[in-house]
C-alpha cells in the first residue's frame, strides 16, 4: 500500500521515465498485443473482499483458432468457454448453458489506438517497480484515475512476453479491492484437446441471450447527462431466459464499463430500489415508466448512481 501511495505521489509530482525504457502507454499496447497472440495454460487466484477463488485457464491462439476456457476449481464446478465471439457458461449443477456474444467484434488493431486515447483521457499512466511473481519478472504499470468516477489499477506484466501476470483494482486510498494473480503459468504448448469440457452436455437447457443491435431512443429511452469520460460502446436488445427482451446500453472509459439495463417491469412483482455493491461492482436500481432500470459496472457508486438517475423516458408518438 505504501508502495502504491508512493508511486501515485511520484505520478502527481511528475514522474520521469527511465531513459530508453518503453513508456507506460507502450507497455499497455504490448499487454494488449500479448492477449491476442499468446497461448498459455495456468492457475490463477481471484480475490475480492474476503473471498478467494482459484481457477484454471487455458488459451489457444493458433491459425484460425481463438479460444479460451476458464474452469472454476472452488465450489460448484463451472466453466466459461469462449470460441471467437461466442461465450458459453456451463453450469453442471442445473445442466444449463448460457450463451452470450462478446461485445467488441472489431478487429484488434483497429480498436487499440482509439481505446488507448480514451484511456489516457481518464487515467494517468506510469511505470512502477519490477517484481517477481509466479516465477516471472514483471514490470508494474499504474493507471491512476483522473477523477472519482473510476477506480485505479495496477498491472504487472512479464518483462519478456508482456503477458499479464497480476492485476489489481484499487480504491481512492490505493487499497486493493479486487485482485487477479497467476500462481502458476506456462506459455505455449496448448492444443485444442486442452480446451475440451470434461463432461457431456447432451440434453442440457440452453439459454441464448439472442443479442441484437437496438436503438433504445426509438422506444423513447434516453440518457439525459453523459457520465464524464464514459462513451457509449454498445446498444442492444437481449433476452434473459423466457422473459421479455431487455434493452442494454454500455458505456466505457477505456478500462471500465457500465451497463444500463432497461427491463419491462414483470407484472405485479415487487423490487427494491437503491444501491448495492459486490466488490468492485456497484449496482443501482430504480423504476422509470413501468420499467426497471438497473445500472451495473466496475466503477464507484457515484458513477453508477449518476448514470441511473440520468435515464429518461419520453413516450414516442
Amino acid at each position, binding site marked *: 500500500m505504501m508502495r502504491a501511495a508512493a508511486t501515485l505521489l511520484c505520478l502527481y509530482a511528475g514522474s520521469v521515465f527511465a531513459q530508453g525504457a518503453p513508456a507506460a502507454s507502450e507497455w499497455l499496447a504490448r*499487454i*494488449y498485443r500479448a*492477449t491476442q497472440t499468446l497461448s498459455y495454460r495456468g492457475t490463477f487466484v*481471484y480475490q*475480492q473482499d474476503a*473471498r478467494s*477463488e482459484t*481457477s484454471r485457464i487455458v*488459451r489457444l491462439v493458433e491459425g484460425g483458432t481463438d479460444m*479460451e476456457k*476458464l474452469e*472454476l476449481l*472452488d*465450489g*460448484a464446478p*463451472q466453466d*466459461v468457454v469462449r470460441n471467437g465471439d461466442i*461465450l458459453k*457458461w456451463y453450469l453442471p*449443477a*442445473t445442466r444449463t448453458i*448460457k450463451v*452470450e*456474444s462478446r*461485445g*467488441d467484434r472489431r478487429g484488434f488493431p483497429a*480498436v487499440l489506438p482509439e*481505446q488507448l486515447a480514451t484511456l489516457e483521457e481518464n487515467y494517468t499512466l506510469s511505470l512502477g517497480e519490477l517484481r517477481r511473481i509466479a516465477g516471472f519478472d514483471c514490470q508494474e504499470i499504474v493507471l491512476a484515475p483522473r477523477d472519482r468516477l473510476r477506480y485505479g489499477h495496477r498491472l504487472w506484466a512479464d518483462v519478456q512476453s508482456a503477458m*499479464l501476470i497480476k*492485476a489489481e483494482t484499487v480504491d481512492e486510498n490505493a487499497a486493493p479491492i479486487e485482485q*487477479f494473480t497467476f500462481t502458476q503459468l506456462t506459455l505455449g504448448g496448448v492444443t485444442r484437446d486442452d480446451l475440451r469440457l470434461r463432461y457431456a452436455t447432451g440434453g442440457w437447457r440452453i439459454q441464448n441471450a439472442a443479442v441484437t443491435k437496438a436503438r433504445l431512443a426509438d422506444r423513447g429511452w434516453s440518457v439525459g447527462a453523459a457520465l464524464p469520460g464514459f462513451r457509449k*460502446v454498445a446498444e442492444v436488445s*437481449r433476452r*434473459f*431466459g*423466457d*422473459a421479455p427482451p431487455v434493452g*442494454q446500453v454500455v458505456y*466505457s472509459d*477505456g*478500462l*471500465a*464499463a457500465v*451497463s444500463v439495463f432497461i*427491463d419491462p417491469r*414483470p*407484472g405485479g*412483482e*415487487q423490487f*427494491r430500489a*437503491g444501491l*448495492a455493491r*459486490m*466488490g468492485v*461492482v456497484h449496482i443501482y*436500481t430504480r423504476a422509470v415508466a413501468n420499467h*426497471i432500470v*438497473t445500472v*451495473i459496472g*466496475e466503477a464507484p457508486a457515484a458513477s453508477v448512481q449518476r448514470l441511473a438517475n440520468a435515464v429518461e423516458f419520453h413516450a414516442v408518438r
Partner: protein
Amino acid sequence: MKPTISAWMDGECDEQGRPHDPARTVADDELRNAWTTYHLIGDAMRGLPALSPRFTARLLERLEAEPVVLAPQRARVPATRVRRTVLSLAASFAGVALVGWLAFAPLSGRSPDTAPAALASKAPVPPARDTASAVPPAGTTDYMLAHQAYSPGMRLQGIASYARTVSDGNARRGAR
C-alpha cells in the same frame, strides 16, 4: 410525541407543521414501540395475518448480514401462492425497514447473535419461507454476465475477468 407518530403514518405534519423526524423514532424506545403498535393495529384492522414475534428485528438482522444485492425479481422464478402472500407482506415491512436501514444508522448491537447470520450470508439462498432473502440468485449474476461481454477488461485479461461473475454466482447460488 405519539400523536405525531400517528400523524406521520398518515403522511401528515405535527401541529407546528413540521414533518416527523424519523431519527427520533429510531433513537427512542417509546416512539419505536408506538410505531410498532400502531402498525399492528392498522394490520389487524385491514385483516392482515399477524407475523411471528421479533419478525422485524430478525428481518433487519438478516438484511444487515446479507451481502447486499438489489436487483429486480426475475419473472421466470416461480413462487407458490403462500410465498407470494408472505413476500408481499415482507416487502411492505421490508420497504419500511429498508428505507430505515438506508437512511439511518444500522440498529446493530440490539440483536443477540449475529454470528450465525453472518455465516449464513455466504450460504445458498434460504428456503422459501425465509422472507428476508432479497433476490433470486440468478438476477444480478445474469446482468453481470451480460455486462462483462462488453467490458474492456476482457481485452486486458481475457476470460480471467469472468472469475468475477462466476465466483459471485457460485457464492450466491442456491439449490434449485
